[in-house]
């Protein structure tokens, strides 16, 4: 069955093994525009690899993957580049180019997109293009890091690097943004700031968002909170948590298998022992 063109992402019975260990074990799900997916699970449960398979960075052993309605399972790497420019990704370790400044890092996707689309002579810096410079400034203002334009990533703190990573992921206004453990290793205050930024991006542009996290609180915020453009803060969604929960889905992974898929309240009501243990230890 081919998914409808509006489907953002679809996995159909996807499996992947590293040696004898399954990294993904018959995973299937479907994501529609405007939806938020929170993928949870212990370290090594296959969360990161799922994101990599979603954009074709890693190919599955079996099963099929559709991205923006196009099947990418057997697409050549060359043909994937254009599709990937429509997805924003925040890597677990940031994945920032350490030999480029913050401004050059954030400008990279813009310049790259222009190079791909016009196949013009490649350029490694965006100097001299006022439109790109303005967009970079605007995006860095969005993550409240405008003053770091000329700094190098290693001059920034962990939380700031994560914010630059978010800026680089969203600078092209992609239809889908993937966040791989955006709060891992951060203090609670910085983690809250990061989640606020992710909510701000999601709610201002209605971006489809997939967030991998091992912290239940992050998922709770994603499901129940909204960004309020008037106050500039995030607040509990008006009209009860229902509206938020409708569009936020929780996926729980264990040893490569998708053991749960549903809303936050369904997750709290489930009898699955692994999910229950995850919730109990996560302090939900």
């Amino acid at each position, binding site marked *: 069955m081919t998914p409808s063109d509006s489907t953002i992402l679809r996995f159909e019975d996807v499996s992947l093994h590293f040696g004898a260990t399954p990294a993904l074990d018959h995973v299937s799900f479907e994501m529609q525009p405007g939806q938020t997916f929170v993928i949870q699970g212990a370290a090594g449960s296959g969360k990161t690899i799922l994101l990599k398979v979603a954009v074709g960075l890693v190919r599955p052993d079996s099963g099929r993957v559709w991205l923006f309605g196009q099947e990418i399972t057997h697409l050549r790497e060359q043909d994937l580049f254009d599709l990937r420019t429509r*997805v924003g990704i925040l890597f677990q370790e940031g*994945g920032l180019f350490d030999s480029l400044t913050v401004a050059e890092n954030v400008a990279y996707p813009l310049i790259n997109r222009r190079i791909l689309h016009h*196949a013009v002579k490649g350029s490694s810096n965006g100097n001299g293009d006022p439109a790109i410079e303005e967009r970079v400034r605007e995006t860095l203002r969005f993550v409240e890091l405008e003053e770091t334009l000329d700094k190098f990533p290693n001059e920034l703190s962990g939380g700031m690097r994560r914010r630059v990573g978010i800026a680089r992921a969203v600078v092209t206004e992609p239809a889908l943004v993937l966040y791989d453990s955006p709060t891992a290793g951060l203090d609670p205050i910085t983690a809250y700031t990061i989640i606020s930024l992710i909510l701000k991006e999601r709610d201002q542009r209605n971006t489809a968002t997939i967030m991998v996290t091992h912290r239940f609180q992050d998922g709770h915020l994603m499901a129940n909170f909204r960004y309020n453009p008037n106050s500039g803060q995030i607040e509990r969604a008006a009209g009860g948590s229902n509206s938020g929960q409708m569009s936020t889905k929780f996926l729980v992974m264990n040893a490569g298998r998708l053991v749960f898929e549903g809303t936050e309240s369904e997750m709290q009501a489930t009898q699955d022992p692994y999910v229950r243990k995850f919730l109990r230890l996560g302090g939900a």
Partner: protein
Amino acid sequence: MLDILKPAVEAFQDFVLLSVRAVRNIFRSPHYGDDILIQMDVIGVGSLFIVSLIGLFTGIVMALQMARALTIYGAQDQVGQIVSITLVRELGPVLTAVLVAGRNASGIASELGSMKVTEQIDAMRALGTDPIQKLVTPRLIATAVVLPLLTIISDFIGLAGGYFIASTMLGLTFSEYWTSAWQVLEYNDLAQGLIKPFVFAVVIALVGCFYGMRTSGGTQGVGRSTTSAVVSSSVWIFVLTAFITYVWNRAFAKQ
């Protein structure tokens, strides 16, 4: 038994695949012109001083060594010829390439290796850039262009070093030395002296990129890749120079 060979065969296959894609990308858009120029600067201009220095002393040593032997036979006026032939055919290309391998195969492997272990290569792919197009092909083009140029400079400075010894210790005049040094060279010597650095350049760039791109195991892995790149490219330079010389002599040997 076959299991022992498997990793080596797989590595060779990966190397061939990388090479094919890197070369194919030369003819494909997009072209990262800025990156090619930056790499030419790093590899070419960056190596110029050390390559000139080594060229100079090679010429001086060659002339000194030959002077003693030639004086015995009263043939010291032929020192220019000997310095010229050995430098242009062999020592210039090989020594320059070994220096550039030490300086740049290591640099390329460690740079790409660090990018690999910190997920920057994956990030690049995820952002829609072909890492081979962006990182490998510019280094290949840049090295293939600048190494023959560096070799010409090194050869010339080596000859100048030889002239310094010939004039100060053997009393040769400017024209005696340079005329014999120039006239002894045939077109096929010059061709051999330019084909070699071109082949070595391809090996240095591709071996450096290959070890860089397959780095794993954190900072220790970067160290291992760097060492492997230098050792491997240096060994290949010597193997290939022997091979090219053999083939060349078979093809152009005077009847």
